[in-house]
């Protein structure tokens, strides 16, 4: 069969029975021949449209051609220049709603596996011998990056390449933000994140953990006392939402953030050798349908839950998770309860015993354009459960804005930025990622970090001119 009419090369994965019991990565990655074959499926469009589907406009066709030519060095350069977090985005981007959706192969044979190839090329790059030399900043100006999630990491890297002294301040004891505390290792191994951070350190970026800007150091003091010329706020959207239904404070109810942080950052799966505990019973209900919900429910399985279920008030069609995570969750035995709205967490002696729900049906589209779920009268029923994990979204963390008079936010908590979408209401303080947009994707945060770095460079250059 001609390559151009072949189906998308499937990602080799570990067997569901095996992988659903540990936290090792699910996807095994392409081998060289997979990659060469898959890259050959690219139609070499005269006017490629895949790039239009990429929030940071990675020149996908160029990197695809380099892979097909077997030039991984060139492919990785093209990728890294456009997207400094390629190894991460190749693993966590919703490609089916971005680049791969645009691919001309999509309708007939399935898209070229752009995400899998992005991962392949980045993994190749990580396997190459490293140059240990640490770059020295050559400019005088210092820039502080607040938060070490995706937007902060990208902003730091871009500024370091431009010669600035860059310090990244992280509130937790390890850098990475949501990439560390949020995304489990079975989807994004810590070793990938550690490699990205180590490469930033080689660019001269300094990482300082255990410092909360707004608490340990006031934002103003970065400028007045510590001599920074600019600061970038990439503090994300880490404040968990609760539903406001009765029983949410019972023991055994977690926010997805707490549940995943205990696992990912604190390694609760190694308890008691690691000392942070997590209570996972036989029946766990996760409320929500995004990637975080999938991460939480699959983590619950891995921690021994016999019934790990997703409870969502809308239907499968309105689910917001990546399709791959959904498919993997089904293979691993996660149960899905669509059109089911939790109305109360039931408990006994302070502990969760059940989740009371109502059946829903879809009505007219709501403000989000999705069909509005409407409760069916008299349909109340109870799931007997030991744990409830709330994964219904997060909001920007107000800690820094509360501590900084003059740092303006929208009523929902997002930081206000100028018409360029980069500078906040405080002079030379920039922001990007979820802290500005509300919870979104890694790639959008990476794009925002890059854009802010360009603006910081241009503004600081103008200041000194």
């Amino acid at each position: 069969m001609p390559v151009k009419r072949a189906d998308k090369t499937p990602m080799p994965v570990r067997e569901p029975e095996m992988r659903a019991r540990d936290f090792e990565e699910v996807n095994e990655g392409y081998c060289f021949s997979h990659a060469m074959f898959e890259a050959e499926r690219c139609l070499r469009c005269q006017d490629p449209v895949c790039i239009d589907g990429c929030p940071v406009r990675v020149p996908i066709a160029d990197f695809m051609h380099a892979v097909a030519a077997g030039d991984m060095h060139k492919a990785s350069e093209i990728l890294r220049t456009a997207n400094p977090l390629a190894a991460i985005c190749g693993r966590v981007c919703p490609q089916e709603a971005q680049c791969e959706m645009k691919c001309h192969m999509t309708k007939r044979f399935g898209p070229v596996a752009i995400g899998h190839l992005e991962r392949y090329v980045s993994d190749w790059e990580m396997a190459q011998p490293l140059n240990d030399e640490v770059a020295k900043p050559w400019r005088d100006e210092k820039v502080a990056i607040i938060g070490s999630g995706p937007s902060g990491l990208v902003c730091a890297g871009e500024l370091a390449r431009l010669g600035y002294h860059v310090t990244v301040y992280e509130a937790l004891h390890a850098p990475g933000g949501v990439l560390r505390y949020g995304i489990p290792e079975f989807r994004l191994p810590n070793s990938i994140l550690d490699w990205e951070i180590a490469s930033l350190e080689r660019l001269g970026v300094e990482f300082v953990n255990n410092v909360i800007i707004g608490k340990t150091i006031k934002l103003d003091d970065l400028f007045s006392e510590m001599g920074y010329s600019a600061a970038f706020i990439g503090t994300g959207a880490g404040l968990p939402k609760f539903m406001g239904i009765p029983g949410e404070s019972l023991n055994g109810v977690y926010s997805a953030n707490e549940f995943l942080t205990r696992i990912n950052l604190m390694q609760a799966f190694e308890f008691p050798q690691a000392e942070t505990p997590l209570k996972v019973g036989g029946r766990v209900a996760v409320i929500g349908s995004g990637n975080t919900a999938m991460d939480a429910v699959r983590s619950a399985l891995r921690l021994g839950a016999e019934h790990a279920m997703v409870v969502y008030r809308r239907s499968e069609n309105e689910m917001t998770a990546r399709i791959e995570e959904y498919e993997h969750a089904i293979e691993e035995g996660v149960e899905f309860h669509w059109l089911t709205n939790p109305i109360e967490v039931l408990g006994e002696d302070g502990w969760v015993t059940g989740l009371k729900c109502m059946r829903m049906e879809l009505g007219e589209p709501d403000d989000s354009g999705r069909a509005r779920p409407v409760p069916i009268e008299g349909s109340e029923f109870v799931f007997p459960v030991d744990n409830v994990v709330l994964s219904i979204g997060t909001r920007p963390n107000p800690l820094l804005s509360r501590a900084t008079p003059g740092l303006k936010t929208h009523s929902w908590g997002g930081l206000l930025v100028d018409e360029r979408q980069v500078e906040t209401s405080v002079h030379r303080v920039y922001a990007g990622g979820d802290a500005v947009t509300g919870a979104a994707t890694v790639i959008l945060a990476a794009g925002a970090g890059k854009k802010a770095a360009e603006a910081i460079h241009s503004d600081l250059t103008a200041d000194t001119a």
Partner: protein
Amino acid sequence: MVKILEKCQLTPITKLYRVDAPLIAKAARAGQFVIVRVREGGERIPLTITDYDAEQGVITIVVQEVGATTRRLAELEVGDHILDMVGPLGEAPDIPSGGHIVGVGGGYGSAALLCLMRELSDRGEKTTIVMGAREKDLLILADELGEICDHVEICTDDGSAGFKGFVTERLQEMIDGSPPGRPDYVIAIGPMPMMRAVEKTTAAAGIDTTASLDPLMIDGTGMCGGCRVTVGGEVKFACVDGPFFDAHEVDFDEAVSRSKMYVKEEQKAAACQRSAREVA
């Protein structure tokens, strides 16, 4: 890494540390706390800042051995380092001026009152500390608090020092007019059941009371929601909205229940720690 500069043993299970933490010392205010982690794989636990000295860049913490992490911490000596320390966290309390301000400290809670009571005394308030412990040897920082406050009322369960009985009983006597007199405002810091008992006592007398809650928490920045407490029917995060809350509005039953969530796991972690030590 935070270096330990000074260590002293306050009771058989309570240690006081002065540590080198210039950024925290500079930013700290009375009533705030830090979160520490003692080793790789260790828990993150909140500890109240007992005292701070911005000029010397030093903060004081008091640690009572209650679980695996605090036991590990208690084993550290001068010159050793605490792996991670972040802070200052939480908000300083807003204590109204004027009147008789009474701090009620139970067990190691007295330590948490030290710099707060000094700040209030320095502000010119009339201050009393009512501190309680099971027995005389378990009282901590009584002399230091004595120097700071106008009056010190010591209570022990067995009568080995001061008043024989609970802090709430002595508090009730004061409310009834016993010198140093009825409080106008009470600050309660100590074990959750003690704070609940203080709240009940002052509620009956209509005295404004604030309590410093120390629920379980991980990040201390509002990210996990593990420290949520119900105050006046609303869910609050003790790490960022607290740790001080209007005691009369706190749902103590829920807070006590949540604080016991991992009792079995804590025993398991402690057993694991012991067996690891026996092997070594």
